């Protein structure tokens, strides 16, 4: 049974359709990356999963229950790290950690101390004096020291330095090693690439791409740079070849994985001198869906394959 299963979820705020038929599935024991720019509906989805917002329509199951109706029972089995952590200014960090842990139903004291040490967080400082990164650490320590089945992390590392980012990744691996599942919403593509078994890319309230990174790469074009003895011709007529452009006396092009073979057969006729081929990075995958929004939102809904 899936840890999270969402089908055709719709949520509107006033006239704005924040979620527009979103599907999402997180399986037990996996780290699931949830990617999308600001305003695409990541936090809205997470808030519906936490029973904070009510869905307009669609099916949502969380740990086998209904996130709105069974909120309290489900919350004992999950831990949440919000993207923008706000705490009570006059409580110390240690007090805030213990409080969240207790309200969730208990905290592993040994883990807590170990995590404080690993994240290099001073628990005696008042929350009002913490930086954004340190407030985030408070929420992370409180969540990771709870022994739960699911961790819901909404951009948890946006304020952490690279050193702490590495610690964070190790700790997430430890959680999944112990059998927990993680939903990780993130902007940090390197982090997603390093941690996630599967990813879902969300755009304007619906998931436009989902699968393992290998699957996504397989569906995406490979970039090929080639240098030949004879001038290359006839590329435009080849099936599955796009974006052909000369670069420093070479030719760079993108090819759909299914047509890689026919491309190579074509290239050898011009005597290949050098050739590099790179699978798309996650960043390229991501930008493929959002590149047009960056240039003023063209009409096409990019990436629906």
């Amino acid at each position, binding site marked *: 049974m899936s840890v999270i299963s969402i089908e055709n979820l719709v949520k509107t705020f006033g006239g704005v359709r924040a979620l527009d038929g979103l599907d999402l599935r997180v399986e037990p024991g996996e780290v699931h990356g949830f990617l999308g720019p600001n305003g695409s509906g990541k936090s809205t989805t997470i808030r519906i999963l936490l029973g*904070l917002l009510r869905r307009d329509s669609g099916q949502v199951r969380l740990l086998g229950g209904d996130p709105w109706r069974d*909120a309290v029972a489900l919350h004992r089995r999950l831990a*949440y790290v919000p993207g923008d952590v706000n705490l009570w200014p006059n409580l110390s960090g240690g007090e805030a950690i213990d409080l969240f842990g207790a309200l969730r139903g208990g905290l592993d004291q040994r883990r807590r101390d170990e995590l404080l040490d690993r994240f290099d967080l001073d628990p005696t400082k008042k929350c009002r004096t913490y930086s954004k990164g340190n407030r985030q650490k408070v929420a992370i320590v409180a969540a990771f020291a709870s022994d739960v089945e699911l961790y819901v992390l909404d951009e948890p590392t946006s304020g952490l330095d690279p050193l702490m980012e590495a610690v964070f990744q190790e700790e997430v691996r430890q959680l999944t090693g112990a059998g927990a599942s993680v939903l990780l919403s993130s902007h940090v593509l390197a982090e997603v690439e390093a941690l996630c078994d599967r990813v879902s890319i969300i755009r304007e309230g619906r998931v436009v791409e989902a699968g393992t990174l290998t699957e996504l790469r397989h569906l995406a074009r490979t970039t090929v740079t080639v240098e030949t003895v004879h001038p290359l011709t006839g590329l435009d007529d080849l099936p599955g070849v796009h974006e052909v452009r000369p670069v420093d006396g070479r030719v760079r092009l993108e090819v759909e994985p299914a047509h890689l073979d026919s491309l190579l057969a074509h290239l050898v006729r011009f005597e290949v001198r050098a050739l590099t081929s790179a699978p798309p990075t996650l960043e390229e995958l991501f930008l493929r869906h959002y590149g047009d929004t960056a240039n003023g939102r063209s009409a096409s809904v990019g990436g629906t394959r």
Partner: protein
Amino acid sequence: MSGFTGTSRLVRLALRRDRVRLAIWVLGTPLIGYALAESVAGLYPNKQTRLGYAETAVTSVVARAFNGPIAGTELGAVVVTETYLTLALLSALLSTFAVIRHTRQNEETGRAELLGASPVGRYALLTAALVVVVGANVLAAGLLAAAFVGAGLPVAGSMAAAAAIGGVGVAFTGVAAVTAQLTVTSRGGNALAAATVGVAFLLRAAGDVLGEREAGGVRLDSAWPTWLSPLGWGTQVRAFGGERWWALALPVTLLVVGVAVAFALAERRDVGAGLLAARRGPARATAGLLSPVGLTWRLNRGALAGWAVAVAVLGLSMGVAGHEVDAMIADNPQAAQAIAQLGGGSELVDAYLAAMLGLFALTIGAYVVQALLRTRNDESDGVLEALLATAVSRTRWLGTQVLGAVLGALALMLLAGVTTGLGYGLSVGEPIGWAAELGKAALVRMPALLVVAGVVAVLFGALPRWSIALSWALLIVFLLLGQLGAVLDLPQAALNLSPYTHVPSVPAADLALLPLAALTAVAAALLLTGLVTFRRRDTPS
């Protein structure tokens, strides 16, 4: 580039940021001044009544402590005695908060860092804050003088009185400039400056209580502690009683000294740092904190303690003043009528005590509103989201908040009744009996406070975005209906809108259980509606 580069731009930024606050301050002060002057003029229309007032003001310990020294028997002197401390405290606190807002708060939030990276001088931020706040004080004082003149008071006295009040603001601008350098947080800076205001009040009260009546006149010569207090300096200007203009040099001197110290401190510290170390907290929570009830207590106990001190001090002094009511009222039929209208009943002292308890109930309504609206603030800040993502249900959370606010109000009302009773009882030689009686009478007001809690809960549940504005607006409506309703001869239907109208005015009136039961039922229905609507809605919204 000098240390002051960019000051004028920052001044404009501050004006833009605070255009509403500053407008309310600069226009509100003269409006309040005008209204108070008019009402005092109505209460003491002739020499006879003013002489009676001045006699009490000079002799009564309570009047000396809470109104300051009276400068003579002119109408203006009475107006100043009645209005000075209200306006001076307002001006002190507004100046303090404004200075901190434009200095330390900017540093705390990192805005100062952003500004400091642009061509802005080291002193520009502080200088801009001072220019804005001193400017606001000067402007408010000018308009206040005009308001006093408009209310028919002599020009020289009006200017002296307004300058005295503006001077208090200027003096505390200097104080806040220093405290802004000391603490890391704006909260700390505000607290330190507000504590200075409190000490200034106590010093002035002590000096005025210890003062001596001037030989052959109706005027009080304050003792030396008053001269140590910036709040006292304004009274020493003696507006409308042979003005001593030189006393206005004192606040200006404090401003200059404060600014010099602040600049010297700013020179020696880093941006964002303070001179007082931030206090640390425990590394682990005690078991008492680890529940919604524990957290609610922890978050509210500071405010509750502050309220308790204020209520106890006010209760005791109102109670002691009860003894003087008879004497004061004998000379002044208008005041007698006003008290009878507020408190009801025939026995004037009972009416007075009932009116005081009614006022406490209204004021403590503000505690209820503030304590319950904390949940709305938590929702806006995102704290509520993190809380509700734990295994705490919405019902449990809001229920705990309501319980906390109501129990806090109960404690404060009880304290108000007991201290008022104690104060009055001490002056008539029967402290225990009166403390018990007024303690019980205070509890009779609780159902009205329950309704206030219910109203806030419904607004929070059903109209979260509007809940803060509407809650305060409704409380103010209740206050106006209670204070002005009878005076303005409003129809009973309008008065009935306020829950406070339905509370039997014990001890001036007999205890009636039916209205109390009805109020409690209404409160229960409101609270239930609040819970249900909150359970059904989105958070945050």
